[in-house]
């Protein structure tokens, strides 16, 4: 809330009847947007008869843990969550560090070829992952890396937008004088990067980290083809395959989905500020 400058002066007619109407509409829309997720969580705790009830209940009358217990005994759900966590964390670490160093060099050093390199990065940024995933898969396969962490990570080690974001930030927000002063004092380049530049980039790197984590957490097609053992599934893949074959029972499906929803919802609420900043930055790169 602190960032909001209290009242937006463009606000007209926000008191009285108009304001109330706006709140009613927004309240209804918010509710509708959340309702599918609310039902999902609520269904997870329902008994089979209550799942058939109309209208569907939001708060189960006789909440039961049976669905959750049976899902946890049938599927390595926690293992899948763990796999996703490891995958997303490693991917984030790689994307943040490669973007930080490459963005800094591309933004602050004047070497022949740098404009060309940057041009290539921008040009490839628009290519969707799905376009080049088949050759990437063939490479991973011939390297014998299917069903391994490195094989999974290969698709998610770098992010063109991350390099772009850092470069823009470095060019606009880190003065050359600061770096020159450090050089005059005899500081080495690595030291300058680690001790001066990196701490100044905390803001954009934080936003980037959240984006990268989210991207890996929701990855689907790549983990689906690369990780094919039940124990190596990521959460999204495990859940999607669980719901195709293993069960037709709404209660248990909802329980599994609700459990899978918890980490991402939790992560979003903790990181909301960074998230919004990252998504907004990625939207306004023009």
């Amino acid at each position, binding site marked *: 809330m602190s960032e909001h400058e209290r009242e937006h002066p*463009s606000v007209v007619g926000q008191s009285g009847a108009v304001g109330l109407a706006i709140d009613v509409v927004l309240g209804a829309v918010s509710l509708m947007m959340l309702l599918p997720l609310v039902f999902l969580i609520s269904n997870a705790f329902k008994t089979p008869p209550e799942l058939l009830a109309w209208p569907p209940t939001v708060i189960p009358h006789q909440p039961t843990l049976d669905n959750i217990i049976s899902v946890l005994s049938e599927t390595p759900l926690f293992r899948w969550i763990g796999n996703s966590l490891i995958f997303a964390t490693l991917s984030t670490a790689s994307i943040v560090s490669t973007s930080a160093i490459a963005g800094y060099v591309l933004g602050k050093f004047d070497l022949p070829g740098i404009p060309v390199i940057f041009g290539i990065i921008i040009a490839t940024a628009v290519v969707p992952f799905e376009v080049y995933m088949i050759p990437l898969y063939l490479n991973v396969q011939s390297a014998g890396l299917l069903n391994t962490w490195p094989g999974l990570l290969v698709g998610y080690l770098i992010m063109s937008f991350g390099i772009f974001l850092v470069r823009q930030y470095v060019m606009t927000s880190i003065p050359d004088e600061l770096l020159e002063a450090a050089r005059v004092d005899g500081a080495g380049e690595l030291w300058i990067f680690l001790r001066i530049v990196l701490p100044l980039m905390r803001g954009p790197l934080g936003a980037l980290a959240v984006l990268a984590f989210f991207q890996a957490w929701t990855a689907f097609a790549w983990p689906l083809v690369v990780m094919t053992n039940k124990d190596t599934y990521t959460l999204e893949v495990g859940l999607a395959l669980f719901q195709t074959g293993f069960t037709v029972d709404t209660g248990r499906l*909802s329980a599994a989905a609700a459990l*899978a929803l918890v980490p*991402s919802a939790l992560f979003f609420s903790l990181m909301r500020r960074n998230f919004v900043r990252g*998504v907004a930055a990625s939207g306004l790169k023009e």
Partner: protein
Amino acid sequence: MRTTPKWLFPVLALLPVLALYGCIRVYPIIETLRLSLFQWNIISRRKPFVGFANFVELSSDPLFLEAIFNTTIIAFSVVAITIPVALALAALINTRQGLRRSGVYEASVFLPHVVSLVPAAMAWKWIFDARLGPLNALIGMFGIPAQSWLFDPVLSLVCLIVLCSWQAIGYAVLIFLVGLKNVPEALYEAARLDGASSLQAFRYIAVPLLKPVMLYVSVITLISSYNIYAQAFVLASDVQGAPGHLVRVLVLDMLENSFRNYRVGYAAAEAVVLLVIVLILTGAQFRLFRDRSRA
């Protein structure tokens, strides 16, 4: 005092990243372009060059045509729904700026965009379920007969559009809100002095200024809708024991050709088609932007 040459640090720092970039990004993209000109079934050692034969075959492949038709319908429908709805929501939320509840609205609208795809799709799958789903029960109250949403070829497309729009709206609202906050206050003041209502001020001041942002969000939404896969995968897979109607989307068709039919060259040609679509959309956006800034 320094003895190391000036270029040493940037070169050493950049090299590993560039090497990585070349191996996992540039090379596979070039390889996709190259493979699309070959006929290759993974196992065979023979990999004859066939020129544009893959593309010619694609142009009369009913499954591919169905996929590209479905994907296009989905992508444009999602944009047609998302942009106006998101613009209206952003405008309304913007009038509540600074109030505590505006944060609640923002978060509720944004949450579907950030929760994991698969559980969210599963939630909708239950809603659409023919026997147990609340949607049929709801329309039943109005005397409309129950529909088999996920089995019917047309309705299953509608379901996918609803699901994808629900996910896309939060992103568009967020970007529009940033855009609305950047509208200079003085313009609103001037409009108010001239006696414009807030609706008029929005229509004639905010909307024209937001046009580039709207264009941008439309293109991003189109591109990401052209890449949908997980949503179709979840909605179409077994519903209550029976498979739902498979909505063939572009990525699904591509993966099927590559990993089920082992036609790698053919699948690469599909990937190239996807790339061309994305490039056309991006190009159109740049073009429109340029025209706008020149005008």
